[in-house]
Protein backbone atom coordinates (compact mmCIF):
# COMPACT_ATOMS: atom_id res chain seq x y z
CA UNK A 1 0.00 0.00 0.00
CA UNK A 2 1.27 3.45 -0.83
CA UNK A 3 2.28 5.46 2.19
CA UNK A 4 0.70 8.94 2.40
CA UNK A 5 1.18 11.82 4.81
CA UNK A 6 -1.17 14.63 5.80
CA UNK A 7 0.32 18.03 5.01
CA UNK A 8 -0.75 21.53 5.87
CA UNK A 9 1.01 24.07 3.69
CA UNK A 10 0.45 27.80 3.54
CA UNK A 11 0.71 29.01 -0.05
CA UNK A 12 0.33 32.72 -0.79
CA UNK A 13 -1.23 33.27 2.66
CA UNK A 14 -3.82 30.52 2.19
CA UNK A 15 -3.68 27.25 4.14
CA UNK A 16 -4.05 24.02 2.13
CA UNK A 17 -4.52 20.56 3.67
CA UNK A 18 -3.90 17.48 1.55
CA UNK A 19 -2.73 13.86 1.76
CA UNK A 20 0.43 13.32 -0.26
CA UNK A 21 2.78 10.55 -1.23
CA UNK A 22 6.23 11.46 0.12
CA UNK A 23 7.78 11.29 -3.35
CA UNK A 24 5.51 14.08 -4.67
CA UNK A 25 7.71 17.04 -5.59
CA UNK A 26 6.68 20.44 -4.27
CA UNK A 27 6.57 21.74 -7.85
CA UNK A 28 4.05 19.04 -8.82
CA UNK A 29 2.05 19.62 -5.64
CA UNK A 30 1.68 23.32 -6.49
CA UNK A 31 0.72 22.64 -10.09
CA UNK A 32 -1.34 19.46 -9.92
CA UNK A 33 -2.85 19.49 -6.44
CA UNK A 34 -3.43 23.24 -6.08
CA UNK A 35 -3.73 24.24 -9.76
CA UNK A 36 -1.13 26.96 -9.27
CA UNK A 37 0.43 26.49 -12.69
CA UNK A 38 2.42 29.73 -12.59
CA UNK A 39 5.32 27.76 -11.13
CA UNK A 40 6.91 26.23 -14.20
CA UNK A 41 8.81 22.97 -14.48
CA UNK A 42 11.80 23.01 -16.81
CA UNK A 43 14.70 20.68 -16.15
CA UNK A 44 13.54 19.03 -12.90
CA UNK A 45 17.09 18.77 -11.63
CA UNK A 46 17.81 22.20 -10.25
CA UNK A 47 19.60 23.79 -13.19
CA UNK A 48 17.08 25.97 -15.05
CA UNK A 49 15.43 27.87 -12.18
CA UNK A 50 11.93 27.91 -13.75
CA UNK A 51 10.36 26.35 -10.64
CA UNK A 52 11.83 28.86 -8.16
CA UNK A 53 9.46 29.73 -5.30
CA UNK A 54 9.95 31.36 -1.90
CA UNK A 55 10.23 28.93 1.01
CA UNK A 56 9.66 30.90 4.22
CA UNK A 57 10.73 33.97 2.25
CA UNK A 58 13.93 32.52 0.75
CA UNK A 59 14.22 31.52 -2.91
CA UNK A 60 14.42 27.77 -3.55
CA UNK A 61 13.92 25.24 -6.33
CA UNK A 62 10.51 23.62 -5.83
CA UNK A 63 11.58 20.62 -7.97
CA UNK A 64 14.31 19.78 -5.43
CA UNK A 65 11.96 19.47 -2.48
CA UNK A 66 9.16 17.11 -1.56
CA UNK A 67 5.74 18.55 -0.76
CA UNK A 68 5.77 16.69 2.56
CA UNK A 69 8.81 18.79 3.57
CA UNK A 70 6.83 22.00 3.13
CA UNK A 71 4.23 21.05 5.74
CA UNK A 72 4.10 23.80 8.35
CA UNK A 73 5.99 26.18 6.09
CA UNK A 74 4.99 29.18 4.00
CA UNK A 75 5.38 29.07 0.23
CA UNK A 76 5.08 32.08 -2.06
CA UNK A 77 4.55 31.47 -5.77
CA UNK A 78 4.32 33.93 -8.66
CA UNK A 79 0.54 33.97 -8.14
CA UNK A 80 1.19 35.61 -4.77
CA UNK A 81 2.88 38.70 -6.22
CA UNK A 82 -0.15 40.65 -7.49
CA UNK A 83 -3.73 40.85 -6.24
CA UNK A 84 -5.17 41.12 -9.75
CA UNK A 85 -4.02 41.64 -13.31
CA UNK A 86 -4.59 45.40 -13.20
CA UNK A 87 -2.35 45.85 -10.19
CA UNK A 88 0.85 44.03 -10.98
CA UNK A 89 3.78 43.94 -8.58
CA UNK A 90 6.29 46.67 -9.60
CA UNK A 91 8.70 43.90 -10.65
CA UNK A 92 6.06 42.35 -12.93
CA UNK A 93 5.10 45.78 -14.27
CA UNK A 94 8.75 46.44 -15.08
CA UNK A 95 9.04 43.16 -17.00
CA UNK A 96 5.94 44.23 -18.97
CA UNK A 97 7.28 47.71 -19.73
CA UNK A 98 10.88 46.70 -20.53
CA UNK A 99 9.87 43.65 -22.61
CA UNK A 100 11.65 41.38 -20.14
CA UNK A 101 10.08 38.23 -21.60
CA UNK A 102 9.28 36.57 -24.87
CA UNK A 103 7.84 33.07 -24.42
CA UNK A 104 7.52 33.63 -20.68
CA UNK A 105 8.50 30.14 -19.58
CA UNK A 106 11.40 31.27 -17.40
CA UNK A 107 9.66 34.43 -16.15
CA UNK A 108 7.97 33.16 -12.94
CA UNK A 109 11.25 31.65 -11.75
CA UNK A 110 13.14 34.82 -12.55
CA UNK A 111 10.58 36.97 -10.74
CA UNK A 112 10.76 34.75 -7.64
CA UNK A 113 14.56 34.93 -7.73
CA UNK A 114 14.63 38.72 -8.13
CA UNK A 115 12.16 39.44 -5.29
CA UNK A 116 14.57 38.44 -2.48
CA UNK A 117 17.55 39.73 -4.50
CA UNK A 118 16.10 43.25 -4.72
CA UNK A 119 15.11 43.13 -1.07
CA UNK A 120 18.71 42.33 -0.15
CA UNK A 121 20.24 44.64 -2.75
CA UNK A 122 17.78 47.48 -3.57
CA UNK A 123 20.24 49.39 -5.77
CA UNK A 124 22.13 46.73 -7.76
CA UNK A 125 24.71 47.31 -10.48
CA UNK A 126 24.28 45.64 -13.87
CA UNK A 127 27.02 43.14 -12.96
CA UNK A 128 25.24 42.23 -9.74
CA UNK A 129 21.95 41.76 -11.61
CA UNK A 130 23.59 39.51 -14.18
CA UNK A 131 25.27 37.48 -11.43
CA UNK A 132 21.94 37.14 -9.59
CA UNK A 133 20.29 35.90 -12.80
CA UNK A 134 22.94 33.22 -13.37
CA UNK A 135 20.79 30.50 -11.78
CA UNK A 136 17.89 31.07 -14.19
CA UNK A 137 18.02 30.02 -17.83
CA UNK A 138 16.25 32.05 -20.52
CA UNK A 139 16.51 30.79 -24.11
CA UNK A 140 14.66 33.68 -25.84
CA UNK A 141 15.79 37.08 -24.74
CA UNK A 142 19.57 36.99 -24.50
CA UNK A 143 18.91 38.46 -21.02
CA UNK A 144 19.41 42.11 -22.05
CA UNK A 145 15.76 43.10 -21.59
CA UNK A 146 15.55 41.06 -18.39
CA UNK A 147 18.46 43.07 -17.00
CA UNK A 148 16.71 46.27 -18.12
CA UNK A 149 13.50 45.15 -16.43
CA UNK A 150 15.25 44.43 -13.13
CA UNK A 151 16.96 47.84 -13.27
CA UNK A 152 13.60 49.49 -13.91
CA UNK A 153 12.05 47.56 -11.02
CA UNK A 154 14.81 48.68 -8.67
CA UNK A 155 13.99 52.31 -9.68
CA UNK A 156 10.26 51.80 -9.18
CA UNK A 157 10.68 50.09 -5.81
CA UNK A 158 12.89 52.81 -4.31
Amino acid at each position, binding site marked *: MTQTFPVSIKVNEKEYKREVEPRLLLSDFLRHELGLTGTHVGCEHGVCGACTILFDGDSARSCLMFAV*QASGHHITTVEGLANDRDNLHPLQQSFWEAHGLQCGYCTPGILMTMIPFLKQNPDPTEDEIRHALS*GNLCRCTGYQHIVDAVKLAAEKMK
Partner: protein
Amino acid sequence: MKPAPFEYHAPDSLEQALQIMKLNAGEGKILAGGQSLVPAMNFRVVQPGVLIDLNRVSELSFIHEEDGTIRIGAMARERHLEFDSSIAKRTPLLTEATPFIAHPQIRNRGTIGGSIVNADPAAELPVLMLALNARLKARNASNERWIDASDFFTGMFSTALEPDEILVEIELPFMPAHTGWSFMEVAPRAGDYALMGVAALVTLDENGKCAGAKLVYLNAGEGPVDAKEAAQILQGEILSDELIKSAAVHASEKEINPFGNVHTSAEFQRHLANVLTKKALKQAAQRAGDLQ
Protein backbone atom coordinates in the same frame (compact mmCIF):
# COMPACT_ATOMS: atom_id res chain seq x y z
CA MET B 1 11.66 12.50 -14.09
CA LYS B 2 9.87 11.51 -10.90
CA PRO B 3 11.47 9.76 -7.92
CA ALA B 4 10.74 6.08 -7.34
CA PRO B 5 8.63 5.35 -4.25
CA PHE B 6 10.39 5.23 -0.88
CA GLU B 7 9.56 4.89 2.79
CA TYR B 8 9.78 8.34 4.38
CA HIS B 9 10.79 9.31 7.89
CA ALA B 10 11.05 12.84 9.25
CA PRO B 11 12.36 12.53 12.81
CA ASP B 12 12.43 15.67 14.94
CA SER B 13 15.42 14.67 17.05
CA LEU B 14 18.87 13.29 16.28
CA GLU B 15 18.25 10.35 18.66
CA GLN B 16 15.21 9.29 16.63
CA ALA B 17 17.13 9.70 13.38
CA LEU B 18 19.95 7.48 14.69
CA GLN B 19 17.47 4.77 15.76
CA ILE B 20 15.86 4.81 12.30
CA MET B 21 19.33 4.57 10.72
CA LYS B 22 20.12 1.59 12.95
CA LEU B 23 16.92 -0.21 11.95
CA ASN B 24 17.60 0.48 8.25
CA ALA B 25 21.39 0.17 8.11
CA GLY B 26 22.48 -0.03 4.51
CA GLU B 27 19.10 0.97 3.13
CA GLY B 28 18.52 4.24 4.99
CA LYS B 29 19.57 7.33 3.04
CA ILE B 30 19.83 10.72 4.72
CA LEU B 31 18.04 13.65 3.09
CA ALA B 32 19.79 16.87 4.09
CA GLY B 33 19.38 19.89 1.78
CA GLY B 34 18.50 17.62 -1.12
CA GLN B 35 20.24 19.75 -3.73
CA SER B 36 22.26 16.81 -5.08
CA LEU B 37 20.20 13.86 -3.81
CA VAL B 38 16.80 14.97 -5.17
CA PRO B 39 18.09 15.57 -8.73
CA ALA B 40 19.65 12.07 -8.59
CA MET B 41 16.31 10.70 -7.33
CA ASN B 42 14.39 12.57 -10.06
CA PHE B 43 16.63 10.88 -12.64
CA ARG B 44 16.21 7.59 -10.70
CA VAL B 45 19.99 7.26 -10.64
CA VAL B 46 19.47 6.91 -6.89
CA GLN B 47 16.47 4.99 -5.53
CA PRO B 48 16.72 4.81 -1.74
CA GLY B 49 14.35 2.35 -0.08
CA VAL B 50 14.15 4.45 3.07
CA LEU B 51 14.61 8.21 3.17
CA ILE B 52 15.42 9.84 6.51
CA ASP B 53 14.81 13.57 6.32
CA LEU B 54 16.88 15.60 8.81
CA ASN B 55 15.20 18.93 8.00
CA ARG B 56 13.10 18.81 11.18
CA VAL B 57 16.12 18.04 13.40
CA SER B 58 16.69 21.63 14.49
CA GLU B 59 19.51 20.70 16.90
CA LEU B 60 21.89 20.23 13.94
CA SER B 61 21.68 23.79 12.58
CA PHE B 62 24.03 25.59 14.97
CA ILE B 63 27.12 27.67 14.22
CA HIS B 64 29.17 28.81 17.23
CA GLU B 65 32.69 29.31 18.56
CA GLU B 66 34.15 27.01 21.20
CA ASP B 67 37.75 26.59 22.44
CA GLY B 68 39.53 28.05 19.44
CA THR B 69 37.24 26.30 16.97
CA ILE B 70 34.10 26.98 14.96
CA ARG B 71 31.48 24.27 15.53
CA ILE B 72 28.95 23.83 12.78
CA GLY B 73 25.94 21.51 12.86
CA ALA B 74 25.73 19.28 9.80
CA MET B 75 22.35 20.78 8.83
CA ALA B 76 23.57 24.41 8.81
CA ARG B 77 22.59 25.87 5.41
CA GLU B 78 25.30 27.07 3.06
CA ARG B 79 23.57 30.44 2.98
CA HIS B 80 24.09 30.74 6.75
CA LEU B 81 27.80 29.94 6.45
CA GLU B 82 28.05 32.74 3.89
CA PHE B 83 26.78 35.42 6.27
CA ASP B 84 28.01 34.16 9.65
CA SER B 85 30.18 36.73 11.44
CA SER B 86 32.19 34.17 13.47
CA ILE B 87 33.10 32.28 10.30
CA ALA B 88 34.05 35.54 8.57
CA LYS B 89 36.37 36.42 11.45
CA ARG B 90 37.87 33.02 12.26
CA THR B 91 37.88 31.13 8.96
CA PRO B 92 37.56 33.81 6.26
CA LEU B 93 38.53 31.30 3.57
CA LEU B 94 35.13 29.66 4.08
CA THR B 95 33.30 32.99 3.80
CA GLU B 96 35.14 33.82 0.60
CA ALA B 97 34.48 30.43 -1.01
CA THR B 98 30.82 29.88 -0.07
CA PRO B 99 29.36 32.22 -2.74
CA PHE B 100 31.00 29.97 -5.37
CA ILE B 101 28.71 27.11 -4.31
CA ALA B 102 25.95 27.05 -6.97
CA HIS B 103 23.35 29.84 -6.67
CA PRO B 104 21.57 31.51 -3.72
CA GLN B 105 18.46 29.40 -4.45
CA ILE B 106 20.59 26.29 -3.93
CA ARG B 107 22.56 27.63 -0.95
CA ASN B 108 19.29 28.49 0.83
CA ARG B 109 18.59 24.74 1.03
CA GLY B 110 21.99 23.05 0.67
CA THR B 111 23.74 22.09 3.89
CA ILE B 112 27.39 21.82 4.88
CA GLY B 113 26.97 18.22 6.03
CA GLY B 114 25.11 17.18 2.89
CA SER B 115 27.78 18.51 0.58
CA ILE B 116 30.58 16.93 2.61
CA VAL B 117 28.94 13.49 2.71
CA ASN B 118 28.07 13.68 -1.00
CA ALA B 119 31.86 13.97 -1.56
CA ASP B 120 31.60 15.26 -5.12
CA PRO B 121 35.18 15.92 -6.31
CA ALA B 122 33.92 19.05 -8.10
CA ALA B 123 32.28 20.50 -4.96
CA GLU B 124 33.75 23.33 -2.90
CA LEU B 125 33.05 22.22 0.67
CA PRO B 126 35.11 19.00 0.69
CA VAL B 127 38.09 21.03 -0.58
CA LEU B 128 37.52 23.63 2.12
CA MET B 129 37.32 20.95 4.83
CA LEU B 130 40.77 19.67 3.82
CA ALA B 131 42.22 23.17 3.50
CA LEU B 132 40.92 24.17 6.94
CA ASN B 133 41.95 20.92 8.71
CA ALA B 134 38.37 20.15 9.70
CA ARG B 135 37.38 17.33 12.02
CA LEU B 136 34.08 15.63 11.31
CA LYS B 137 31.91 14.03 13.99
CA ALA B 138 30.03 10.89 13.02
CA ARG B 139 27.41 9.21 15.21
CA ASN B 140 25.50 5.99 15.20
CA ALA B 141 22.90 4.86 17.74
CA SER B 142 25.53 3.87 20.31
CA ASN B 143 28.80 5.65 19.53
CA GLU B 144 30.39 8.79 18.22
CA ARG B 145 33.79 9.31 16.62
CA TRP B 146 35.78 12.18 15.15
CA ILE B 147 37.30 11.75 11.70
CA ASP B 148 39.97 14.06 10.27
CA ALA B 149 38.95 15.53 6.92
CA SER B 150 42.16 14.03 5.48
CA ASP B 151 40.82 10.53 6.32
CA PHE B 152 37.18 11.24 5.46
CA PHE B 153 37.19 11.44 1.66
CA THR B 154 37.96 7.98 0.34
CA GLY B 155 37.21 8.39 -3.36
CA MET B 156 34.65 9.46 -5.91
CA PHE B 157 31.43 10.18 -3.96
CA SER B 158 32.80 7.98 -1.15
CA THR B 159 33.50 8.69 2.50
CA ALA B 160 34.68 6.91 5.65
CA LEU B 161 31.13 6.90 7.10
CA GLU B 162 29.67 3.50 8.02
CA PRO B 163 26.16 2.67 6.73
CA ASP B 164 24.56 3.36 10.14
CA GLU B 165 26.45 6.60 10.80
CA ILE B 166 25.29 10.19 10.38
CA LEU B 167 27.66 13.15 10.04
CA VAL B 168 26.44 15.46 12.80
CA GLU B 169 29.05 18.16 13.36
CA ILE B 170 32.00 19.90 11.74
CA GLU B 171 34.84 21.41 13.77
CA LEU B 172 37.10 24.01 12.14
CA PRO B 173 40.15 25.27 14.01
CA PHE B 174 40.51 29.07 13.78
CA MET B 175 42.91 29.95 10.99
CA PRO B 176 46.35 30.63 12.56
CA ALA B 177 47.57 34.22 13.00
CA HIS B 178 49.25 35.87 9.98
CA THR B 179 47.49 33.50 7.61
CA GLY B 180 46.31 34.76 4.26
CA TRP B 181 43.74 32.97 2.16
CA SER B 182 42.42 32.77 -1.37
CA PHE B 183 39.78 30.79 -3.21
CA MET B 184 39.58 30.84 -7.00
CA GLU B 185 37.80 28.78 -9.60
CA VAL B 186 36.88 28.88 -13.27
CA ALA B 187 33.35 27.86 -14.28
CA PRO B 188 31.57 28.11 -17.65
CA ARG B 189 28.83 30.16 -15.95
CA ALA B 190 28.69 31.59 -12.41
CA GLY B 191 27.33 28.87 -10.14
CA ASP B 192 28.06 25.96 -12.47
CA TYR B 193 30.43 23.18 -11.45
CA ALA B 194 33.91 24.61 -11.85
CA LEU B 195 36.35 23.24 -14.41
CA MET B 196 39.10 23.75 -11.85
CA GLY B 197 39.38 25.47 -8.49
CA VAL B 198 41.88 25.95 -5.69
CA ALA B 199 41.85 26.92 -2.03
CA ALA B 200 45.15 28.43 -0.87
CA LEU B 201 46.38 29.30 2.62
CA VAL B 202 49.73 30.95 3.42
CA THR B 203 51.09 31.63 6.90
CA LEU B 204 54.03 34.04 7.14
CA ASP B 205 56.51 34.28 10.02
CA GLU B 206 57.90 37.56 11.40
CA ASN B 207 60.60 37.60 8.68
CA GLY B 208 58.04 37.30 5.93
CA LYS B 209 58.98 33.69 5.22
CA CYS B 210 56.39 31.00 4.62
CA ALA B 211 55.69 29.17 7.89
CA GLY B 212 53.08 26.93 6.31
CA ALA B 213 51.02 26.67 3.14
CA LYS B 214 48.10 24.65 1.88
CA LEU B 215 46.88 24.08 -1.66
CA VAL B 216 43.72 22.00 -2.21
CA TYR B 217 42.06 21.48 -5.59
CA LEU B 218 38.56 20.66 -6.80
CA ASN B 219 37.68 18.69 -9.93
CA ALA B 220 41.27 17.49 -9.92
CA GLY B 221 40.94 13.80 -9.07
CA GLU B 222 38.75 11.24 -7.31
CA GLY B 223 38.22 13.57 -4.37
CA PRO B 224 39.54 16.88 -3.07
CA VAL B 225 43.28 16.91 -3.89
CA ASP B 226 45.70 18.18 -1.24
CA ALA B 227 48.93 19.16 -3.05
CA LYS B 228 51.29 18.59 -0.13
CA GLU B 229 54.51 18.54 -2.12
CA ALA B 230 53.78 21.87 -3.78
CA ALA B 231 53.04 23.35 -0.36
CA GLN B 232 56.31 21.90 0.93
CA ILE B 233 58.23 23.74 -1.83
CA LEU B 234 57.11 27.02 -0.22
CA GLN B 235 57.97 26.05 3.37
CA GLY B 236 60.55 28.30 5.07
CA GLU B 237 61.05 30.45 1.98
CA ILE B 238 60.28 33.98 0.83
CA LEU B 239 57.47 33.62 -1.69
CA SER B 240 59.18 34.99 -4.79
CA ASP B 241 57.45 34.86 -8.16
CA GLU B 242 59.95 32.18 -9.18
CA LEU B 243 59.13 29.97 -6.18
CA ILE B 244 55.38 30.43 -6.64
CA LYS B 245 55.80 29.43 -10.25
CA SER B 246 57.61 26.21 -9.36
CA ALA B 247 54.94 25.29 -6.78
CA ALA B 248 52.24 25.93 -9.42
CA VAL B 249 54.05 23.76 -11.96
CA HIS B 250 54.56 20.96 -9.46
CA ALA B 251 50.92 20.93 -8.29
CA SER B 252 49.43 21.18 -11.77
CA GLU B 253 51.79 18.68 -13.44
CA LYS B 254 52.54 16.14 -10.70
CA GLU B 255 49.97 16.19 -7.93
CA ILE B 256 46.53 16.68 -9.47
CA ASN B 257 44.90 14.10 -11.70
CA PRO B 258 42.03 15.75 -13.60
CA PHE B 259 39.91 13.60 -15.96
CA GLY B 260 38.52 16.20 -18.35
CA ASN B 261 34.83 16.28 -19.19
CA VAL B 262 32.45 17.57 -21.86
CA HIS B 263 33.47 21.17 -21.09
CA THR B 264 37.23 20.78 -20.85
CA SER B 265 40.22 18.57 -21.60
CA ALA B 266 42.39 17.34 -18.73
CA GLU B 267 45.23 19.33 -20.27
CA PHE B 268 43.24 22.57 -20.02
CA GLN B 269 42.36 21.72 -16.40
CA ARG B 270 46.09 21.44 -15.64
CA HIS B 271 46.66 24.78 -17.34
CA LEU B 272 43.92 26.36 -15.23
CA ALA B 273 45.37 24.82 -12.06
CA ASN B 274 48.76 26.33 -12.89
CA VAL B 275 47.33 29.82 -13.49
CA LEU B 276 44.93 29.74 -10.53
CA THR B 277 47.65 28.49 -8.16
CA LYS B 278 49.91 31.44 -8.98
CA LYS B 279 47.12 33.96 -8.59
CA ALA B 280 45.78 32.38 -5.40
CA LEU B 281 49.20 32.09 -3.74
CA LYS B 282 49.95 35.73 -4.52
CA GLN B 283 46.64 36.87 -3.10
CA ALA B 284 47.04 34.69 0.02
CA ALA B 285 50.63 35.90 0.59
CA GLN B 286 49.54 39.51 0.11
CA ARG B 287 46.77 39.10 2.66
CA ALA B 288 49.10 37.35 5.12
CA GLY B 289 51.53 40.27 4.73
CA ASP B 290 48.74 42.78 5.32
CA LEU B 291 47.88 40.99 8.57
CA GLN B 292 51.41 41.38 9.98
